């Protein structure tokens, strides 16, 4: 019997937890203004899990609508930045890599919104870079 794939994560205080039972569909580092301001970090990174493999455990995140088509998840108790949901990517759950219990296990595929990158921050890798959205996923033209 093959080993079961399990990724777990949650916020800093432990109030919000989640589990995914599939490999991520994709990993991405986003340099957009909204991700930067919301996380307080120079760039934010996400992994996408298939929606049917993903379960929130315990308290649900709070969601803040950051644009007409996107919401940002965070823990109401400790404020940890947890993820994002977009109508155009309803087949998946996007969680912030910093919330994973083992973030080093996931792979990053590309960088998006590099036109908004803060000039002094770079991760020094040779991954594909997109000035706006990645061609790997459907998207709307605006960031969010």
């Amino acid at each position, binding site marked *: 019997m093959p080993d079961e794939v399990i990724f777990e994560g949650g*916020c*800093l*205080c432990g109030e919000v937890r989640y589990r995914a039972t599939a490999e991520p569909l994709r990993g991405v*580092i986003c340099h957009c203004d*909204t991700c*930067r*301001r*919301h*996380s*307080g*970090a*120079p*760039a*934010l*990174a996400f992994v996408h899990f298939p929606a049917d493999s993903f379960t929130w455990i315990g308290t649900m995140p*709070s969601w*803040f609508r*950051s644009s007409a088509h996107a919401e*940002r*998840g*965070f*823990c*109401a*108790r*400790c*404020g*940890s*930045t*947890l*993820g994002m949901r977009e109508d155009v990517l309803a087949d998946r759950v996007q*969680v*912030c*890599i*910093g*919330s994973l219990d083992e*973030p*080093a296990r996931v792979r*990053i595929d590309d960088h998006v919104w590099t036109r908004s990158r*803060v*000039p*002094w*921050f*770079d*991760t*020094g*890798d040779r991954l594909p870079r997109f000035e706006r959205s990645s061609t790997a996923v459907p998207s709307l033209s605006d960031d969010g």
Partner: protein
Amino acid sequence: MGMTIEGGCLCGAVRYRATAPPVSRSICHCRSCRRASGAPSVAWSTFHVNSLVFTHGMPVRYRSSPDVMRTFCGVCGTQLTYRHDEDVDSIDITTATLDAPEQFPPTKEIWIEHKLPWERANEAMRHYPRTSTG
């Protein structure tokens, strides 16, 4: 002529103003900053506590370890500040919540011990395995 540096959260419910430049600027790779921000690492600008005021709203406080207080916006969740009980004169602001973060490049990277393997340290900055003090 006075200097004014402003910033705030994503939704605008919390705004702050600093009347003096930051005394230091760093990128932190520690696990707690990563968990709180969701990001690989966090940039902090350290201000003298007397030079920073909240001009609109107040952030929510969360004690992330016995001697550390972090704050965030209760409406949108943006991570805003960090204070260590032993460093009473300082308050760290997330550099990415400044309105002009490009003007405040970090000069050092701390907690390299916790850095994710796929994030490369910037060779132009000073590196510290843990904190840059003590």
